[in-house]
């Protein structure tokens, strides 16, 4: 199973877990699995049409999935899926 890494602004919704393993054949599957495991995450990751929110980037290891063809890129054991939202504090 891949590991999903949660940014600290969202760890409030994952019982403070920064990373955990989730089932999923693709990056998007893995993110949906995380939202199923922690339902409070869903609002922050997906919009009302169940699409990934546009300010969220997903990385497979250290590469943006946009550069790999999109969030349906396959994942394997050992891969890390990173959720990266925009933040704006200054």
């Amino acid at each position: 199973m891949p590991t999903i890494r949660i940014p600290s602004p969202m760890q409030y919704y994952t019982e403070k877990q920064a990373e955990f393993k989730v089932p999923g054949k693709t990056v998007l599957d893995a993110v949906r699995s995380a939202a199923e495991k922690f339902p409070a995450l869903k609002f922050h990751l997906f919009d009302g049409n169940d699409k990934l929110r546009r300010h969220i980037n997903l990385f497979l290891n250290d590469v943006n999935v946009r550069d790999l063809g999109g969030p349906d890129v396959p994942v394997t054991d050992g891969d890390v899926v990173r959720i990266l939202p925009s933040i704006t504090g200054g």
Partner: protein
Amino acid sequence: MLPNLNHEEILRYSRHLLIPEVGLEGQRKLKASSALVIGTGGLGSPVSLYLAAAGIGRVGLVDHDVVDQSNLQRQVIHGTSTIGKLKVESAREKLSDLNPDIQVDVYNEPYTSANAMRIAQEYDILIDCTDNFPTRYLTNDVCVFLGKPNIYGSIFRFDGQVSVFYAKEGPCYRCLFPEPPPPGLVPSCAEGGVLGILPGTIGTLQATEALKMLLGIGEPLIGKLLLYNALDMSFDFVKLKKNPNCRVCGPNADIRDLIDYEEFCGVPGRDQEEGSAGAGWDVTAAELAERVQRDHPKLLDVREPHELEISALPNALNIPLGQLAGRLSELDSAEEMVIFCKAGTRSARALELLVGAGFRKVKNLKGGINAWARDVDGSLPVY
């Protein structure tokens, strides 16, 4: 022709001159260079201090705020003696004392589409030390249009991000974040909090990148994003590439002029007061106090649960803003309801959400529970 250094400057910068990668030539480059620091708060403090110390010839400071006591937990360029003073003036005093040889320009005005190009064109490099999405997108677009590097930094609670967005050589900010989040979804430091030391770390990293760019040394973070977490002291890097569909720096860019960034980010216009939901939707703390006595409206607190330990109103239902959309079924649209948060910003967003869902008997507590603490119940702290 680079400016020479006098004997005093040679002494002041001797520790730079001793580094082969800087040397006399590098220090003269710094003296000839200029940087615009947009924001003189948490990030702007270490950025401007270290650039001044390094001998950047000209530093511009943009901010239209005044120093507030709550700033001093992290905005180390200011002090108790400058509370109430314009931030740019407070910062200029400190920088001029640190290094009287540099030129410090101050811009006590909102940084907007009306003035951004005029201000920015004077400087070699822009440093994004802002605290809001509209200004970040504005800063990015200005840098793309003027062909200047944008040294990006942002923070939240324990996390920080740093990169160099330089469209001539790599991605811009919009390549990574084509769109902002919906208003209210990503809190500011005022709403979500921030570890005070965090902007010190991130701002110093931004200053480092600025110096590397101006000196032409090292490997700047072009095409890379540094992700820092203070709790586990991790420094992770992810790769960034130009987005071929970028609307500002891409080959088919359709944004060629500055836009209305507040409209783009969905935030209220500047003529709408902070902490207000707009005419007809607000109640003041005094008005709410009367209504509580008279007809007991439902109170909805949209703050995070840990904030209730600081101050709370009795009998208020707590549904954090981030959960509200998924918990509308817990609310009765037939009931009169007053929504509040710390200062009125999140509750204004909550009100918009509820009105959009068909709720009509809703009001926003203008100024939030802080206004209640100031005007009604002084036993509660303002935070």
